[in-house]
């Protein structure tokens, strides 16, 4: 195998691939990057067995072949060569030579046959989506995902496709966020898959070009996303997502309308004196006024009063201030609508007009 490539062409894809490769590996070969030359394309692959990124770069005058080389070392060599340097890559038996100007490197490598790539078979379902749209949906939901929860299905994001509707749901058991959007083309199927946490965070980092069109393929095992010259794959979580539909089927108090910014500022101020761990704040709601108050074990107290639009019985309920702030920060409208369940078991936060984004917080007992 032999090829020559410009440093700038290989550097970015290589960095993207190395970002999934973990420093501590169970198998030595996983710290390597798989390099394949096939049909005038240079194909780089990196995986940690949970996610895999493949980058394809067009290349001319290359001899086909395949090999794996230590990823970090290869990246560092490419990175530290001068801008615009031509890199010559040659394989000699179990060694790889990298030459550029007067620099020469020789890397030991492992055979490509031993590399545990994801299988390349066709996946059952696919749809197309704009990268900006997906990125927005991810941004509005990912922060609700649980982290290392024993209920492992919560350490991920539910992706629900039903014909031309796409719905993303994340929850850590205390709060839940739902984002709905529509696809340009109907898909003609209904599917629910759980995308693991690590894959979601990595994917969100790769979606930097909002105009790109993504092709997403998935089966019950894997998901594969084509982002320009990259192919991102991930294993899915092996479980069913809990049924959260029941939370909608209950009685509610009348909705409360508040200016988003006013609520945000007031909450931030009051939260200063809340219990550091639980961030509990009490909301006393009376017609047209909301009193936010808190106190902490040091007997500090804070209180703030806001004007709201609400017609109904007075009520009192407590929340984690951080959860409310996260929700309010993700609203696009000026006005926030809070709807509290009549048994005080949950609070919905959404926008007055479009209901694409919904956030549900469980109250606290103070």
């Amino acid at each position, binding site marked *: 195998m032999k090829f020559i490539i410009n440093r700038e062409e290989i550097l970015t894809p290589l960095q993207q691939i190395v970002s999934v490769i973990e420093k501590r590996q169970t198998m030595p070969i996983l710290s390597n990057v798989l390099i394949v030359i096939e049909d005038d394309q240079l194909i780089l692959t990196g995986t940690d067995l949970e996610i895999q990124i493949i980058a394809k770069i067009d290349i001319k005058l290359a001899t086909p072949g395949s090999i794996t080389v230590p990823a970090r070392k290869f990246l560092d060599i490419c990175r530290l060569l001068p801008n615009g340097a031509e890199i010559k890559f040659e394989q000699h038996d179990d060694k790889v030579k990298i030459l550029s100007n007067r620099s020469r490197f020789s890397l030991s490598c492992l055979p490509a*046959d031993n590399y545990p790539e994801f299988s390349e078979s066709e996946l059952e379902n696919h749809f197309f989506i704009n990268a900006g749209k997906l990125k927005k949906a991810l941004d509005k939901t990912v922060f609700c995902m649980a982290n290392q929860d024993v209920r492992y299905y919560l*350490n991920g994001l539910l992706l629900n496709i039903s014909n031309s509707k796409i719905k993303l749901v994340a929850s850590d058991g205390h709060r839940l966020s739902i984002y709905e959007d529509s696809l340009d083309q109907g898909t003609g199927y209904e599917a629910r898959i759980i995308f693991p946490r690590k894959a979601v965070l990595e994917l969100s980092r790769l979606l930097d070009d909002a105009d790109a069109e993504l092709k997403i393929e998935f089966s019950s095992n894997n998901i594969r996303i084509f982002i320009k010259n990259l192919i991102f794959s991930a294993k899915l*979580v092996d479980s069913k997502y809990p049924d959260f539909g029941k939370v909608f089927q209950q009685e509610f108090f009348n909705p409360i309308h508040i200016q988003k910014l006013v609520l945000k500022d007031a909450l931030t101020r009051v939260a200063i004196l809340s219990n550091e761990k639980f961030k509990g704040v009490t909301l006393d709601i009376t017609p047209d006024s909301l009193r936010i108050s808190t106190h902490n074990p040091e007997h500090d107290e804070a209180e703030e009063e806001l004007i709201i639009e609400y017609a109904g019985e007075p009520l009192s309920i407590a929340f984690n201030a951080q959860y409310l702030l996260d929700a309010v920060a993700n609203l696009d409208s000026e006005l926030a609508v809070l709807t509290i369940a009549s048994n005080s078991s949950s609070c919905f936060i959404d926008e007055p007009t479009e209901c694409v984004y919904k956030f549900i917080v469980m109250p606290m007992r103070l």
Partner: protein
Amino acid sequence: MTILPWQQQNWEHLCDYKSQNRVPQALLISGNKGLGKQHLANQFAFSLLCAAPQNNGLHCGHCDRCLLLNAQTHPDFIQIIPDEPGKSITIGQIRSLVTRLTLKPQFDSWRVVIVSPADLMNNAAANAFLKCLEEPTERTVIILITDKPACLPATIVSRCQKLAVVKPDKETVFAWLKERNADIIHSDVITLYGLAQGSPLLALEYANDGTLTLRNDCFKAWIDIAKQRKHPVIIAEDWYKLPESPLLFWITSWIVDMIKCFYPINADWLYNPDLKESLQELSQELELKELYKLYDLILVSRQRLNTQINKQTMFEEILIKWLELNLGK
């Protein structure tokens, strides 16, 4: 890539699981050390993971999956062993396994986890494993291997299908050993069979690493103490550096054989048929009751092996007792 001759029946049993589509979620393979349990488990795992297994159920050895298996990079073949030999399998290892199993297998066939030796899981690890062991995610088989099934918590055992690898008969072992090691002489084979308690792999290992010489040296020292030619403390100093578990078994076997020698006995019934005459000679000088006391001490010592006991003192105690026994006649 073959099945050991004495495991043929176990293998057919496993193949039936596969052909009837009734592969259990957890399988406990038990049997003495040196019977090839790990080999059996590996063959079963390979056969489940291979893309095109042969007619007899064995893996093909040349498909993509088998290449990965041979290179030990198959993502759906997970082995859990202690981080250092002799240490326990920790809760951290089990937790990361459980996390790993929450994702789907990489390929569309099975995923196999082998925990070996399962009795080295500490309590916390075993408890953390229960939920996963009972209901692992789809297409996952967990194989536990142990030579001390009694050391496993009942909660683990009750969640597994059991498969016992049994000791083969003498002829099978003799034939197999001769096939593997053509230079071996027949009398050695018989001795090795006794030493390895009928476990062929262990016998082969003993044959190849010169254990027989070492054991003969130890027996000489044992006699030297009885005849008061050597001091027990000096011998204990040499012995505590040797692998203690086989050594303690040898001592046990000598004592057991000496007890047997009190009665008219056929050499075949002894652990050490080659030492029959020396043992008989020794036993004639001894009190049976005292010999049983020494036997009790050895049993206690064997239990203490896995604790932080000072091995030198342990051997001193045994050997001094042995000397006293010989003096007391």
